[in-house]
């Protein structure tokens, strides 16, 4: 069994080992012990903070193997993307071009530097070690952040977004960057990402990036081709997020042209589909209608104050006031029979 829980100070060493394998420029995660420790510290403070208005809080979750106590994944969420400045993205505008005289009608795409995502909450730092095999756990890890937001809505905005890494070649070069950012920054993609620390809310962006819309037809073919395309490593995250209800197409990243998925919380299944249930004892409750075959996977999360989330197969719980959890699940959640939990189908 795996559990998602807030990161703890004691996790720093394990995280260092885990994140050594993450890809810079793709996973927006720290890789040095010092930076990892700072991130963990910030997260611990954020979970402990009393929040009135979402601001600089940053919450880091880890996926832990309950048996071996090994950390196998991370996922984070920032309360407000632009709390520290303005979060910049390219908005994908469509301009209708019609000339009745000439009987011409077509649309031109233009990328406009915009700051609309500034007050959104931002998902990031999604990394799982065995991403090809652990699909169910990956789904839990990705969604657990949103379940936390369901439990603690005052800590987050009404809208969420997730930038996914765009396409780069084997050498770490980005065709999108080469056509755009490089002309203004005068440096390589990886150098730029290193310099800016993956951030999109810095003053230097407004100083350096183009203020006028970029007409897509003027971009070289390779740059156009990767606009809104995900890095292969992001496919799993992309699938999980679109299943969740996130939508692509409207925004792309200003550096690598990767997609930025976004949604109002009402459009997200974690919000619209989660149900509050009382914990019941699985052993005491006979399986209903049709046995194992009818069981579905639920992500179940405990409380805001002591947040834990697990995924497990259960009987459909829609029509019941309670959800039946076996002892191991209750232990992992830290929830006793009769406690309230929220659950949502995965």
């Amino acid at each position, binding site marked *: 069994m795996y559990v998602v829980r807030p990161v703890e100070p004691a996790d720093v060493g394990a995280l260092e080992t885990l994140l050594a394998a993450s890809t810079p420029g793709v996973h927006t995660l720290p890789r040095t012990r010092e930076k990892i420790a700072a991130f963990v510290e910030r997260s611990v403070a954020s979970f402990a903070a009393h929040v009135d208005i979402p601001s600089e809080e940053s919450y880091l979750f880890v996926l832990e193997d309950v048996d071996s106590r090994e950390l196998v994944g991370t996922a984070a969420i920032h309360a407000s993307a632009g709390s520290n400045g303005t979060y910049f993205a390219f908005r994908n505008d469509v301009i209708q071009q*019609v*000339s009745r005289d000439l009987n011409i009608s077509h649309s*031109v795409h*233009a990328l406009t530097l915009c700051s609309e995502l500034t007050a959104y909450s931002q998902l990031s730092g999604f990394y799982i070690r065995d991403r090809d095999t652990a699909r169910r756990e990956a789904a839990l890890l990705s969604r657990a952040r949103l379940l936390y937001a369901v439990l603690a809505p005052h800590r987050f905005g009404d809208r969420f977004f997730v930038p996914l890494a765009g396409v780069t070649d084997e050498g770490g070069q980005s065709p999108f960057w080469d056509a755009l950012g490089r002309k203004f920054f*005068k*440096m390589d993609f990886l150098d730029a990402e290193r310099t800016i620390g993956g951030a999109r809310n810095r003053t230097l962006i407004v100083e*350096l990036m183009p203020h006028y819309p970029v007409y897509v037809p*003027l*971009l070289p073919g390779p740059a156009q081709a990767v606009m809104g395309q995900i890095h292969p490593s992001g496919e799993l995250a992309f699938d999980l997020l679109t299943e969740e209800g996130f939508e692509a197409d409207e925004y792309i990243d200003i550096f690598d042209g990767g997609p930025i998925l976004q949604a109002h919380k009402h459009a997200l299944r974690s919000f619209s589909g989660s149900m509050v249930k009382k914990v019941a004892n699985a052993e005491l409750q006979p399986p209903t209608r049709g046995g194992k075959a009818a069981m579905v996977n639920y992500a179940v999360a405990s409380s805001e104050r002591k947040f834990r989330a697990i995924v497990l197969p259960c009987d459909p719980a829609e029509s019941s006031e309670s959800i039946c959890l076996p002892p191991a699940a209750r232990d992992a959640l830290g929830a006793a029979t009769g406690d309230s939990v929220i659950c949502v189908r995965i």
Partner: protein
Amino acid sequence: MLVIRAITLNDIDPLIEMARQVGSGMTTLKPDRAMLGERVETAVASFAQTIPPEERDYMFVMEDTSNGRLAGVCAIKAAVGLTEPFYNYRIGTLVHSSRELGVFTRMDTLYLSNDLTGSTELCSLFLMPEYRTGYNGKWLSKSRFLFMAQFQHLFTEKIIAEMRGYQAEDGTSPFYEGLGRHFFKMDFNHVDGLTALGKKSFIAELMPRQPLYVAYLPEDAQAVIGQVHRSTLPARKLLEQEGMHYEGYVDIFDAGPVLQGRVAELRAVRDSVLATAEEGQPEGECEVTLVSNTKLDDFRMVLTQACDGGRKVALSVRELQLLHCQPGDPIRSLALNVRKNNG
């Protein structure tokens, strides 16, 4: 002998004949009787001052008096863009700088503009191939400056001349291929033809409005911004000698340069001399000089030898006849060639 003179209604037929020889590339001189006829009428009214200054269009013809044929034509349009928008790209500079990163990037930018609205335009210069010898081309082009020097009060502060832009060997425009084609979705010649017909609303409809960084364009398109067509190089140099400069305005389709000048700072305005016609032979150290009468409604000009920087102009009887002048009449003179040491 050749004389340059204000156009008359009798010139319409020969002018149409000449326009047939111009070929494409000059949008203001098409062999269309209605269009050209109307234009000559406007020109005649301009010299007669029966229409407002900003509507005038002064056309000049070079006539071969030996056979009465027209050898060339040129014009000064008093103000462009007052009935239809006159578009250009203006090249500007934007600096992107971050002290934190130590990055300082200076970038050229294209702005779609109508800044030149109301400027006086030199245009429609054409010399018949058989007359492209000696000083004829130079004279025809520069004749307009002498006219402006004489009638300076008729012109706005600024004048412009649009130069044909660079074309590749195959006749395509790298600038158009790199920019306009993406938005107009048609061939350059088609677009060019539409503007010649005065159909310009498609520009407002289809042209991107937002400032464009030049760096977005393909390199061959970037390279030709402000460059003239090979065959236009000599014409450009002539105008630059007279005090016109490329100031960063280019054609929106082929990026050919617009040369600009302040009337008050033209060589012709600074250096032309108001003198008195006399009959005789030039004496002493002379140079080739444009000499005109000072009559707006019957403007005429010859090319001759004059001395003392144009202050002494001795004209033959024939030349006086061509100028419609008597000895003692006022004339204006300007050396054809720019003096090395300008005073």
